[in-house]
């Protein structure tokens, strides 16, 4: 309890008759990167908007940095930085003015505004654009500027709502780097995404949310392990004997013959089973020529827990982008 910097209990939210958030409950520990992974309309932004005090708490409780969101909204606002899902930049202000305005909004002193703006422009590589109007920035630059703005006040917690939505693959990778850097500096990060790879790559812990409910939570590692579908691929000097040998192990669910080697479906954490299997095979005098362990992807995890693919075009976009990025 002591190291939880965000505590949410039994949070529900209705828009009219639509229950957008349904008894959501989770904790985020100080210093971690925590993600909400879910498809469009899952209720991610609604939860964020409640936590950052833009929406009233209808039902349930939330504490942020030790302050009750319902009772001390001002204190909460002072402890957080926000990057909204949609762009929220004044098109007619320059990059510098955007940051200066934000610093003033939060009553930063003149000196700390100046040094902070310099620091942040370097961090997000926008020094050259200091005096450019935001309407003349590219989408990725705008996003980086918004991230810089979210960091202006050195918040304890940074909320990022779909930080890489609509960015090209290179910019996404860059943005991930910034997020990791910021986190390494001690800022706790709460982010939402519908990109599996993003949640997987960035998060210390993930909650999968769908239709307003948290379906499961854990480290990316945990979530994948819980599926119990690790697959070990082996090529040995004697596949037949290997198959007979390890087929008796309790952790082994089934074995498939492949063109060259064998595919072993593992019950539980494959990384823990693999060394023992190798040992056994070698003891039997069989040579191991190749080994490969494949963990399930976040996509597999998502399908497993929700019973379907992420339903919207978001996934398709993400996939096509990655494909495009590889070419």
């Amino acid at each position, binding site marked *: 309890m002591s190291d939880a910097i965000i505590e949410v209990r039994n949070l529900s939210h209705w828009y009219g008759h639509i229950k957008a958030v349904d008894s959501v409950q989770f904790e985020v520990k100080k210093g971690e990167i925590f993600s909400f992974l879910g498809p469009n309309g899952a209720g991610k*932004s*609604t939860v964020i*908007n409640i936590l*950052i*005090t*833009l*929406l*009233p708490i209808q039902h349930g409780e939330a504490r942020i940095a030790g302050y009750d969101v319902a009772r001390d909204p*001002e204190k909460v*606002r*002072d402890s957080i930085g*926000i990057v*909204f899902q*949609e*762009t*929220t*930049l*004044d*098109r*007619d*202000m320059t990059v510098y*003015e955007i940051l200066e*305005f*934000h610093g*003033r*909004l*939060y*009553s930063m002193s003149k000196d700390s505004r100046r040094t902070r703006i310099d620091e942040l422009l370097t961090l997000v590589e926008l020094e050259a654009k200091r005096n450019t109007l935001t309407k003349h920035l590219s989408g990725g630059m705008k996003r980086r500027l918004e991230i810089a*703005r979210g960091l202006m006040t050195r918040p304890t917690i940074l909320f990022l709502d779909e930080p890489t939505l609509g960015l090209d693959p290179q910019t996404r990778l860059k943005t991930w780097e910034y997020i990791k850097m910021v986190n390494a500096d001690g800022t706790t990060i709460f982010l939402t995404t519908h990109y599996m790879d993003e949640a997987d790559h960035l998060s210390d812990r993930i909650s999968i949310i769908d239709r307003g409910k948290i379906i499961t939570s854990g480290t990316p590692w945990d979530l994948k392990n819980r599926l119990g579908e690790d697959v070990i691929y082996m090529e040995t000097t004697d596949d037949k004997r290997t198959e007979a040998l390890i087929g008796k192990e309790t952790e082994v669910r089934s074995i498939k013959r492949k063109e060259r080697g064998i595919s072993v479906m593992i019950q539980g954490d494959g990384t823990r089973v693999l060394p023992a299997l190798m040992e056994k095979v070698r003891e039997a005098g069989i040579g191991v020529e190749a080994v490969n362990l494949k963990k399930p992807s976040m996509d597999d995890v998502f399908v497993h827990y929700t019973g379907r693919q992420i339903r919207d075009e978001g996934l398709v976009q993400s996939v096509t982008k990655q494909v495009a990025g590889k070419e």
Partner: protein
Amino acid sequence: MQKGFLTVYWRDMIRFFRYKSLLFSSLLQPALWLAFFGVAMASNFDRYTSGIPVPPGGFSIGYLTFMGAGMIAMTTLFTSLYGGIIFLFDKNWGLMREIIASPLPRTHIIIGVGLSGVTKSFIQVIIITIFGILLGVQFFLGYPPLQIGIALIGIFAFVGIFALGFIFFSSAIAISMESPEGLQGVITLLTMPLFFVSNALYPIDSFPSFLKAFSGINPLTHMISGIRYFAIGSDFYALGTHYFNTPPQIVSSFMGLVVFAVVTFLLARWRFSKVVVT
């Protein structure tokens, strides 16, 4: 945090000076009115009214001078009524979210935009006054420098409080609306009656009684009385009508505008407290 409204003010002024076209277009209308309507009407009215005897020692002013105050008022009215439109832009571009989610108290948003609106009005008043004087508007006639200074302070006080009242009003409407068209509609609906049922272009003494009553509570009428008091004098004749204002009358006009501004401020504060931006 006490200076939060200055942040909002600073930002609004940046935008104002960056887009000077806004300043020019807001000045174009009163300039055209003065140059065409004013000069044309003056040449007629002054001919008719020159036949109306003014008591000996009475001070008579031309029509252009008379309507000069009305033009200052019209400009201030328009600029102030549009003052809240920034909130509609901010809602559409999402900037409202940044501000609402910040620790800045919402009243500071209203005050900041109010002050920037007042500043804009002051700039416009100065330009219109200079332009008018060049055209033949006889403001500050025979005033020694010190009195001109006092007169300017008086005019700014009236323009300022009037502008605040209408900016608060416009902010309250804008923050409650979804699109600029709605605000546009309200403005169109309001400006005509406010402008024509006031003493901007003609005396109100001979109005039918209900129009007279309306113009008596019209903030525009009170602001124009104040401007004329300071720019022309407390006792003069125009269009055959005797204008005579005692300081208590002017003070009560001013207080009326203060009440108007306070009421619209409370209205805006209430509307802002209800705002939910997501």
